[in-house]
């Protein structure tokens, strides 16, 4: 008897959120993430304390998230690229209020209304904060349905631990694809005390205040400095990545999410041709795995950054390795997915000219 379920990525994230103790979901439909909301609409009303609400807009949904997060409860919203732009004001307010929450972005091609096919073109938006002001989100980039489950649970834990918003940066392929999932092996969620939460004083303590307004510039500067001390701890402690066939690699692909799945096929094919290529896959794209890339730059000849956008993460790779080695870009955009052959061609081209430095 199999303990596995066959699930879409979107459904799996929703179920994982429920398992992590999330009982509040606010959202608005948009392709290709609608199954997250659809699943929550079926499941949450059947669970004790469960609240599903389809808001009148993305802006309303994220403000409802702020409300629940203020009370210290685990809360989630999800959308796809244009909807995340609408939520970005609220995401900034979450950061300004130091509130933990989980936001899922199942990316589609942009800019503007764009298309409905998969994309990774919200990388800049996600890793540079995702709204106005000095702030960061923790950004997790799964590459399988199982990992979407694990990172959803982990995302809630990290959000609570650092009082930050965690974003799951997925894409249309991962949201829509079906894979077997086991919920037996998911890590147990950690609970964190939240003395700051608005739970009612019961006349036993002073009122807590959750607010992002700070008209005194000295106060606001200190607040930002404190926040960035927390961000430094996140960068120190929470970096996640996966290495693939890097032991003897002369060329290093850097790819996250769906691009890493296709890259893995291309790497296996290139290895059969005798090209020593491997991959470093960032699982956290913020904090970015700078150290492992910096170290890899001492052993590999060149890097290839594979992305479903016009080349965004490549800037972080160049910064991480301090331009010690050339970094090539291998991308498709607008909802197109690179084929393994497309990436293999790039690997062969780089390897042919390789070792020139």
């Amino acid at each position, binding site marked *: *008897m*199999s303990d*596995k*379920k*066959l*699930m*879409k990525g979107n*459904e799996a994230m929703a*179920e994982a959120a429920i398992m992590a103790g999330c009982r509040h979901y606010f959202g608005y439909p948009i*392709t*290709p993430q609608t*199954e997250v909301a*659809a*699943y929550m609409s*079926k*499941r949450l009303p059947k669970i004790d304390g469960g609240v599903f609400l389809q808001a009148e807009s993305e802006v309303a949904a994220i403000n409802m998230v702020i409300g629940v997060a203020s009370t210290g409860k685990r809360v989630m919203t999800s959308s796809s690229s244009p909807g995340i732009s609408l939520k970005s004001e609220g995401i900034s307010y979450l950061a300004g209020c130091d509130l933990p929450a989980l936001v899922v972005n199942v990316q589609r*091609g942009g800019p503007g209304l764009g*298309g*409905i*096919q998969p994309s990774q073109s919200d990388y800049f938006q996600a890793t540079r904060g995702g709204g106005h002001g000095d702030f960061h989100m923790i950004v997790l980039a799964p590459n399988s349905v199982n990992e979407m489950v694990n990172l959803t649970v982990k995302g809630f834990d990290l959000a609570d631990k650092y009082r930050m918003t965690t974003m799951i940066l997925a894409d*249309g*392929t991962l949201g*829509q*694809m*079906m*894979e*077997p999932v086991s919920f037996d092996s998911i890590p147990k969620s950690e609970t964190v005390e939240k003395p700051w939460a608005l739970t009612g004083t019961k006349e036993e303590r002073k009122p807590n205040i959750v607010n992002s307004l700070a008209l005194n510039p000295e106060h606001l500067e200190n607040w930002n400095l404190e926040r960035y001390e927390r961000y430094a701890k996140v960068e120190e402690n929470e970096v996640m990545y996966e290495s693939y066939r890097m032991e003897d690699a002369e060329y290093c692909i850097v790819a996250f999410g*769906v691009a890493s*799945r*296709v890259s*893995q*096929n291309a790497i296996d094919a290139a290895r059969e041709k005798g090209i020593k290529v491997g991959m470093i896959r960032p699982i956290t794209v913020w904090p970015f795995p700078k150290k492992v890339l910096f170290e890899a730059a001492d052993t590999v000849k060149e890097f290839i950054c594979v992305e479903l956008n016009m080349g965004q993460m490549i800037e972080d790779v160049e910064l991480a390795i301090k331009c010690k080695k050339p970094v090539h870009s291998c991308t498709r955009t607008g*909802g197109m997915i690179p*084929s*393994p052959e497309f990436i293999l061609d790039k690997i062969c081209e780089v390897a042919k000219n390789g070792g020139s430095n």
Partner: protein
Amino acid sequence: MDCKDLKRVTIFAGHYGSGKTNIAINYALKIKDSGEEVDIADLDIVNPYFRTKDAETLLAEKGIRLVSSVMANTNVDTPALPAEAYSVVHDKSKHAVIDVGGDDRGALALGRYVPYLAEEDNYEMLFVINKYRFLTGSPEETIEVMREIEFAAGVRFTGVVNNSNVGDDTSEEDVLDSLDYAESVASLAGIPLRFTTVRENLYENLKTKINGLMPIKICVRQSF
């Protein structure tokens, strides 16, 4: 499967992700292989990815006409169906396989064709189930989904198709373990279990153990 006894129209509906599209394509191929003419209509207005249209080339090679939204796979999520879709209910000289979108939301699109199907009264509407999907894990939950679809479509199911699987990880035991579940669903619904489907690689070992087993070639999926 003797296609002479088939109803003219076969409709596949069910929980989304239950496997309707691959079954509909395989079913149409089987009808065609038996020497009958057949059209296939993709009425899925819900799912933007992994659709019948992905198998367009295969269907065209076999001489099976595919009717689908002109918007399908074009990046435009306009849930509109072409006027051409009426031809599969009106042209009574050929068989038709209809692939309906998932859940009650997808089944809503079937409603406009139901008066014609009812008038002709030569259709079979099959409920595709997968025990290993969330929300259809127990017979009772599955019946709930089934009633929602019937309510949205305005038509009753006439049979059940057991497509219980966990994708590439499916074992023979997984399929065998699903038989009681499928029988329970059929019995609660008061309609027959028409057949069970398995991937081609499991077919040889299971065909003597399961009545009316149908092998399925996966035509629509991601390639990585």
